[in-house]
């Protein structure tokens, strides 16, 4: 197997031509998001260039502190993203969501790096990209789960009131919403597993194959990471909602919606 062909800048620039097509279609269909498209592609470019430079530096000068710093900022961004998409939830709920994301994320990362791959936690070549996938997916899952939960609760206030008044416990009232939201958050991951290998060759596997890894090795990594992603999504959403729903009522069983 050969190593990957290094893109030269001219070839690379050609790919931006595709954005012009998107821009053209958006104009024609009056989709008023051209500004977002510009900002998004610009931000992506800058962020990835930056990540590329930083990672190159870290790989050349590996040090535990870099891994820790990288992971910390990753977690920070993930928390920031989840909370900014869920502005309506109360303070204690926010703390619980953040803690759940960090603790479950770290647990799965440690298990994967030390237990499954069996390299040092401070090996940046493994820990950083794998943490990125795990934290990124946990973030998407928690964001979706908490959003679904919060929006359903808000739309069902009068039902919840009615049930409180006939003597149902807040727990009995809220747990069905917890379960339903967890299901909603898990479905995209489960569905993506179904199509894997047939409809899509997932990103990590594609990347490994492009850079010369044997497909048989690449699939092992892919299967392992998919299972890790499912586990982290499930755990992170479960902890966020299962501990979070208790912040919606006080010790007098009064709802704080």
């Amino acid at each position: 197997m050969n190593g990957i062909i290094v893109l030269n800048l001219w070839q690379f620039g050609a790919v931006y031509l595709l954005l012009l097509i998107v821009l053209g279609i958006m104009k024609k269909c009056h989709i008023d998001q051209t500004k977002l498209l510009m900002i998004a592609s610009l931000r992506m470019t800058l962020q990835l260039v930056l990540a590329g430079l930083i990672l190159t530096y870290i790989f050349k000068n590996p040090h535990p502190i870099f891994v820790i710093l990288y992971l910390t900022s990753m977690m920070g961004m993930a928390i920031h993203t989840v909370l900014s998409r869920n502005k309506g939830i109360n303070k204690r709920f926010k703390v619980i969501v953040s803690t759940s994301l960090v603790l479950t994320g770290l647990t799965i990362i440690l298990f994967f790096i030390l237990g499954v791959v069996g390299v040092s936690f401070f090996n940046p070549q493994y820990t950083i990209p794998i943490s990125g996938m795990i934290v990124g997916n946990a973030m998407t899952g928690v964001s979706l789960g908490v959003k679904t939960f919060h929006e359903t609760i808000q739309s069902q206030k009068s039902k919840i009131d009615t049930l409180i008044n006939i003597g149902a416990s807040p727990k009995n009232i809220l747990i069905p919403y917890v379960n339903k939201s967890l299901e909603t958050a898990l479905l995209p991951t489960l569905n993506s597993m179904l199509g894997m290998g047939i409809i899509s060759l997932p990103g990590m596997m594609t990347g490994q194959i492009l850079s010369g890894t044997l497909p048989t090795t690449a699939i092992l990594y892919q299967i392992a990471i998919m299972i890790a992603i499912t586990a982290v999504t499930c755990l992170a959403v479960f902890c966020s909602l299962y501990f979070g729903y208790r912040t919606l009522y006080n010790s007098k069983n009064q709802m704080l919606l």
Partner: protein
Amino acid sequence: MFQLSNVNFKNIIKYPEINISEHKVTFICGKSGSGKSTLLKLLNASISPDEGEVLYHSIPVTDYDTVLLRREVILASQSVYLSDQSIRDNFMEYYSYRGLPAPDDTIICKFLDLCIANFPLTANCHELSGGERQRVFLAICLSFLPKVLMLDEPTSALDEITANSLLKSLTDYCHKEHITLIAITHDLSLAKKYADELILLPTEA
């Protein structure tokens, strides 16, 4: 049995001294905004006053296990919540929220009758009118056999005849079973007809 003293809710509503007696039918009247619905929520401790005390059998309501209190003192709120399934299924849904086994059909029918809602158990609640839904919901609340039943505008969606037969049936049953009934209405004539005691809430200036 219930006593309110110096109760102030968010500085919007200040209640006079209120005493509600056990085993009696008490009607609460007052203009909208006089705090009728809020009063019932204070009594079952689903909200708390900013000042003053709400006592139930001489003990502050919040000193009780509030879930158990609300099982003893049931509030049939004005917003009727029934899902789009049969009357029997709605009974079962409420019973499961209360952690109780599903009731027998004979029990369900008994309480539907009491609430002038003798529709077939398989009737879909989606197809019932507002007043019919209200009575089915009342039947569910009454079937839990609370010691105190609080009704928020139980006749708001009913014509005069149905309203009278419902209140007659409910007050008779509650007297017989020693259930304390507390009901809100803006219809003073109905209140005078069925109440043992009447509380008029003043409107705050």
